[in-house]
């Protein structure tokens, strides 16, 4: 197995996949990163990790995705995985009302443990199971608007909207970072050394030939 230190990206974004047990987080991840789906996947214990590199507005973005265990017991441990995350995909199952009701709890979880500027996409998964639907798309949409989240219904099985969900989150993060970087440059030009409370986004120039950057690193 060859190992090399990978510098071939412009941005590295950490995304967490959260939501109740059994809503399909792991399959969303495998569909997105490996184009695979399994009806009989095992429960995630702790955390699983995958990456995918994609192009966003001519920049190479590497998504580092942390797929967390949904069961209550593992939640206490999961909180450690939020550190440094700039995006979250909050998944519920459209055939199980309870998982939608619990979205509120997951949002609280994010507020408690993640960066306050984290970009959140809510995904109503299993949209292929129309005959079992228990949460209408409208309810999802309304809730998302109320909470200021992006929203899509997805189907990992049919590969519907999965790519789009990630793409949307990553693009939004990219825009925010770009804007912040510009603002920071602007501020630096205007006021010399940054004052207290200014967020600095370091562009790591030590790696020759690459300009990596990231936000919310701690």
């Amino acid at each position, binding site marked *: 197995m060859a190992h090399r230190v990978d510098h071939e990206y412009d941005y590295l974004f950490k995304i967490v996949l959260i939501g109740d047990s059994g809503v399909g987080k792991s399959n969303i991840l495998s569909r997105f990163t490996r184009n695979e789906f399994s009806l009989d996947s095992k429960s995630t214990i702790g955390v699983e*990790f995958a990456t995918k590199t994609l192009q966003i507005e001519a920049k190479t973005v590497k998504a580092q995705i942390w797929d967390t265990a949904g069961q209550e017991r593992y939640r206490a441990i999961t909180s450690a*995985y939020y550190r440094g995350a700039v995006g979250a995909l909050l998944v519920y199952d459209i055939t199980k009302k309870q998982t939608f009701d619990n979205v509120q709890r997951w949002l609280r979880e994010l507020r408690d443990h993640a960066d306050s500027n984290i970009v959140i996409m809510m995904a109503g998964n299993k949209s292929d199971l129309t005959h079992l639907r228990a949460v209408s798309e409208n309810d999802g949409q309304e809730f998302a608007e109320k909470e200021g989240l992006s929203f899509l219904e997805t189907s990992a099985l049919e590969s519907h909207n999965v790519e789009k969900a990630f793409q949307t989150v990553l693009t939004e993060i990219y825009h925010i970072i770009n804007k912040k970087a510009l603002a920071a440059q602007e501020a630096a030009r205007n006021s010399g050394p940054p004052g207290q409370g200014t967020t600095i986004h370091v562009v790591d120039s030590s790696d020759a030939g690459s300009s990596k950057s990231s936000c919310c690193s701690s």
Partner: protein
Amino acid sequence: MSLKGKLKIPNSFMPRLPDRSKTTMQKKKDADGDGGEIEDEELLTFHFFLGIGRSDGERWPTDGEENGFFSEGSSRLRTLFRIEGKEVSLEKRSELEFQLSQNVINLEVLQSIACCGDLDRDFRSIVWKLLLGYLPTQKHLWEEELVKNRLRFSELKREHLVNPVTYNFLLTISFISQSEHSAEDELVNSTRHCQDNDTGGLLCRREISNGDHPLCLANGSFWNQYFKEAMRNILLLFAKMNPAIGYVQGMNEVLALLYYVFRMNPEGEDAVALLSIIMKSAVEADSFECFVRLLSGSVDHFCQQLDNSSVGIHSTLLHFSQLLKANDEELWRHLDNSKSDIVARMMNPQFYAFRWITLLLTQEFELSSIMRIWDCLLSHPSGVQDMLLRVCCAMLLCVRGDLLSGDFISNLKLLQHYPKVDLENLLDVAHHLIPITSPRPFGIMP
């Protein structure tokens, strides 16, 4: 506070014989339509119990016949032939056989045989039960113990698992036929599937396609259905009896391995196993008991309230980290603060070793390797948990070069999908690790 050693199994209740034997007899009669046949079988059972079973093979069907994969007669016969005919003459195997033939089994010798990797798979079931303390070392006590435990289990099941939901589940489960037995009978013998052929809870060969595998997870898999009900009973019972822990995802992985091993070689206890006529329910009972015993040493890892206590998972992870530091400080330093990544600077053992430890490595290797590793875990004198941390640490040392040259992402991927390595070497490394100086109380070894 610790839950260790406090797993609840009520020990005392009247050893009341359930109607099981009678019911099964009745069913045999129904299926065969021939009372004489049954008497014959009973007689054979009895003979075997006295150690004078026939070995001409005439009585039992061979593998190709429909009586099933697990047909107790045929697999027992194979073992007998091998032992009597000295077909297998491996030295170590003989040593194991010799040990198991003693009236009082020397646990230390057994431990060293299992540790060295000389455990023949045919004997794994019985050896694990001995190592877990489920079977006493005095052989003459086996029968009594097993019968007692199995009765207790069926009592527990009756007490805890027969509720309206179970009742309905059993009534609706597709395998249950429209037999003349009352629903009550079904509940008592809730492990039965193949009523048509009545193989005493055995799977029918002809119902299983060649593509179906014992570890198949697909819902359509016969094996899966067959295993799942027993697993479900055990886990449900465990959760009901230990409400502070309940069911935690991943427990199924630990149980599955025990159940699989016991299921594949139920003849371990020999005559005693034959006595409990419904083999499957005996395996279920054995698995439950051993599962409780195994978990009693690590149950705190499953308990969220104890996460930050001295017995919780974080403390164990810290211990693991110290063990690595004691044995390879360079690697420890590299993992502990590999700065090659901006987002996550630290390779927290929680990111990879959490699953290794809580699930006793059941998700990291292929089945045969896991069983081999468990031979070592169960036989290590200082206990399962201590050896487990050693193996985990050895896993890092065995891919040391890759880890030192890799960045955070590649390292995490490597450790979450652990590559194929020389297993014996891995275990050897584990055995020879330097223990850390401040030992934490580990161990469940009886």
